[in-house]
């Protein structure tokens, strides 16, 4: 389930920082990300791999560089799950409230 992979990938605060950086709409290199975060390039590479597995990040070769950018689609899945399930319960609880009002007079 896509939403599962997304939540797992975003459970890590460093990866959330990386996603926020990428959410600015820029494509960056791994070194570019490492320069912005207090972690090693190796750690950046590891986190980028996790984000790629969750398909939150896609890569593009530009010359000799690999550039990373945010892919919003899986994030949309997570947001949709929360929004849909939340809206369903809002409806049900409104019905329950009406039902109980009717019963107690």
């Amino acid at each position: 389930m896509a939403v599962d992979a997304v939540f797992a990938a975003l459970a890590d605060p460093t990866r959330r920082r990386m996603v926020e950086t990428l959410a600015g709409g820029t494509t960056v290199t791994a070194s570019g990300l490492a320069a912005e975060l207090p972690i090693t390039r190796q750690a950046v590479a590891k986190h980028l791999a996790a984000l790629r597995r969750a398909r939150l990040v896609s890569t593009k070769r530009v010359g000799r560089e690999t550039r990373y950018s945010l892919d919003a689609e899986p994030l949309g899945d997570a947001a949709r799950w929360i929004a849909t399930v939340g809206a369903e319960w809002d409806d049900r609880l409104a019905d329950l409230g009406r039902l109980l009002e009717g019963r107690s007079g």
Partner: protein
Amino acid sequence: MNDQRREVERETVLDAPAEEVWEALTDERLLGEWLADEAELEPEPGGRASFRFADGTEKEGTVLRVEEERELAFTWARPGEPETEVELTLVPLVSGTRLVVVERIPAAGPTALAASAWGPRLSALGRALSLVFA
């Protein structure tokens, strides 16, 4: 890390005593008035939970916990979809009853994340990504 799961939480105060709310949560006919169109529920751990909705879809699951007038928890899923857990908790008030609903995707591993920690982050990202997220 069991509490670090992604979930949706809703809370409402109902103008009825816990006893009546509990009945609405466990009586099949009453469940059919608000939770689904038709409901079958065996209110005991391991009992069957089956719901049919107005759109014709169905959810099947298993009752996990039953504590009279306090808590009802069950799993449910549409055929072929992953199961989620639903937890309904009652808190008696001086007047009425508070009902807390939590629906969560069971954690896949220790790195799973609570929606509570995720919510503000998600809306910030949503804005950044121009996602519609209320």
